[in-house]
């Protein structure tokens, strides 16, 4: 038995760097197309309600934050948070359904595609959902005159990258989950605290230094620090660092997800 370049000896692998993910992505896309309206509504309406509600409601009571209206401040946070949510839900609940409940992955694994292809397809798909979500919010806020085009268009690739990072982490959690209930830990222990300390709703510079330090390690903070200036018509600082963190998280988490899912399904 010869060792394979990536992963367990003898098991065929392809993954991120082949095109095997495309038919998996297209399968998920076809399902989404059938339910596109409620899905888009969920991706769009929820963050918009928060944004308008908090932005106008809370914003009227607040002074200007970091030199801008609270609404202007909040938009970037909501776009990034909804991108994270879209990728997270897709790579937890939907991917888990396809792995466990519907056995969709089992059906694909007996074709020439490998498990790496399946996971890469899920990764690309979950990131695509983030993109869709971010894109539709950007459309609405541009129509409301709340973003500064054309610099704001750079938000789109950042949203995509943010989707990749959280999809990859989500696939790790999916690989470990014994049941749907397990995802609650992930939300309560990771996603929700991260939302609070990553500069989504308020600036993190005023937080205690230790929390600020923790936050600076979280992928969500890096996404916010790229998106916020872009929406305000400024060039972000430390672009390379922020992009590198999001890319790094994607690659490392995806490798871990592949390892864990192989151990789970191909043993």
């Amino acid at each position: 038995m010869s060792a394979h370049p990536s992963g367990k000896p003898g098991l065929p692998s392809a993954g991120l760097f082949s095109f095997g993910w495309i038919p998996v992505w297209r399968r998920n896309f076809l399902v989404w197309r059938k339910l596109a309206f409620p899905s888009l509504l969920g991706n769009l309406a929820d963050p918009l309600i928060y944004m308008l509600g908090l932005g106008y409601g809370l914003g009227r009571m607040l002074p200007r934050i970091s030199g801008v209206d609270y609404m202007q401040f909040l938009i970037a946070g909501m776009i990034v948070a909804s991108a994270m949510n879209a990728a997270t839900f897709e790579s937890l609940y939907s991917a888990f359904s396809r792995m466990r409940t519907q056995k969709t992955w089992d059906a694909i694994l007996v074709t020439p595609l490998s498990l790496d292809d399946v996971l890469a397809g899920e990764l690309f798909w979950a990131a695509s959902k983030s993109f869709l979500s971010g894109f539709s919010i950007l459309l609405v806020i541009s129509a409301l005159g709340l973003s500064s085009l054309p610099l704001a268009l750079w938000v789109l690739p950042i949203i995509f990258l943010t989707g990749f990072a959280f999809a990859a982490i989500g696939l790790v959690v999916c690989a470990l989950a014994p049941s749907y209930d397990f995802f609650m830990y992930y939300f309560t222990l990771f996603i929700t605290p991260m939302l609070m300390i990553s500069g989504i709703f308020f600036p993190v510079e005023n937080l205690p230094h230790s929390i600020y330090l923790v936050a600076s390690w979280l992928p969500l903070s890096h996404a916010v620090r790229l998106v916020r200036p872009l929406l305000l018509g400024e060039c972000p600082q430390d672009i390379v660092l922020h992009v590198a963190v999001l890319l790094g998280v994607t690659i490392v988490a995806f490798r871990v997800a592949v390892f864990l899912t192989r151990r789970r399904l191909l043993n």
Partner: protein
Amino acid sequence: MASLNSALEISGLRKSYGGRSVISGIGFSVPVGACFGILGPNGAGKTTTLRCCLGLTPPDEGKILLGGHSIPDDACAARARVGVVPQFDNLDPDFTVNENLLVYSRYFGLKKPEMRRRIPGLLDFAGLTDKENARVEALSGGMKRRLTLARALVNDPDILFLDEPTTGLDPQARHLIWDRLKQLVAQGKTLILTTHFMEEAERLCERLIVLDHGQIVAEGNPHELIASQIEPNVIEIFGENAVAWAKARRALCQRLEIAGETAYFYCNDTTLVCEALDKERALHSLHRAANLEDVFIKLTGRELRD
């Protein structure tokens, strides 16, 4: 490409999980164009054997050649020429019949125009022509099974694996599947099926192996196995005191088995048992030819496997 006469060749296959041996050194070969059965009680290692053959589980030891490809190293290439009907349906519930076939064909890299040409034939084969646009959820169990079979044929495979293809189907649906499987063999495809319906194996398989505790306990043609492994006649006796009555007359035949309230006389010649039975009014009896199920039970025992 090697071994052009064998669709599947396995030797010295071993697999254990957490120190528990599931397959303990099995080997067999499936000739091209044959219908080959893998029989065995629950937990005998049938499904693990199939998973090894498809490259879904790396074996601890052993060699597998599937369609001339070494498994698991070359499994993706091998699977391009293989179709699989899994034990439990895993069709896409969100799709129509047509979409299920189309989406599945993409996993093989097949193009839409080609599939548009081929899908009507597949639907016809599965008896689903008028269900083309029906959602999978609206199909009966038998129809889902037939769609799964059609889906396994999208790549026009040389070799078809079927894991308990008729479990849970009513007799009509089962007979229809059997008929289709015979057609596939007639087309020259190789079928490898696991089952614990002995009738299914007897009807379909030219050759079979019986697995128990991860080992092959018998191998051959079903009719030859019946002839070589077991007495040709069976008299089943039940009714009041049947077991005690039978135990007292053990000497009247080659072999006596007791299961619950029923006694089974396995005989080369039934005359003596029949004469003895003629005098008994309270006993009921059934006289029949020995079948594959008798062989199976003789080899694997009567106790339950869960």
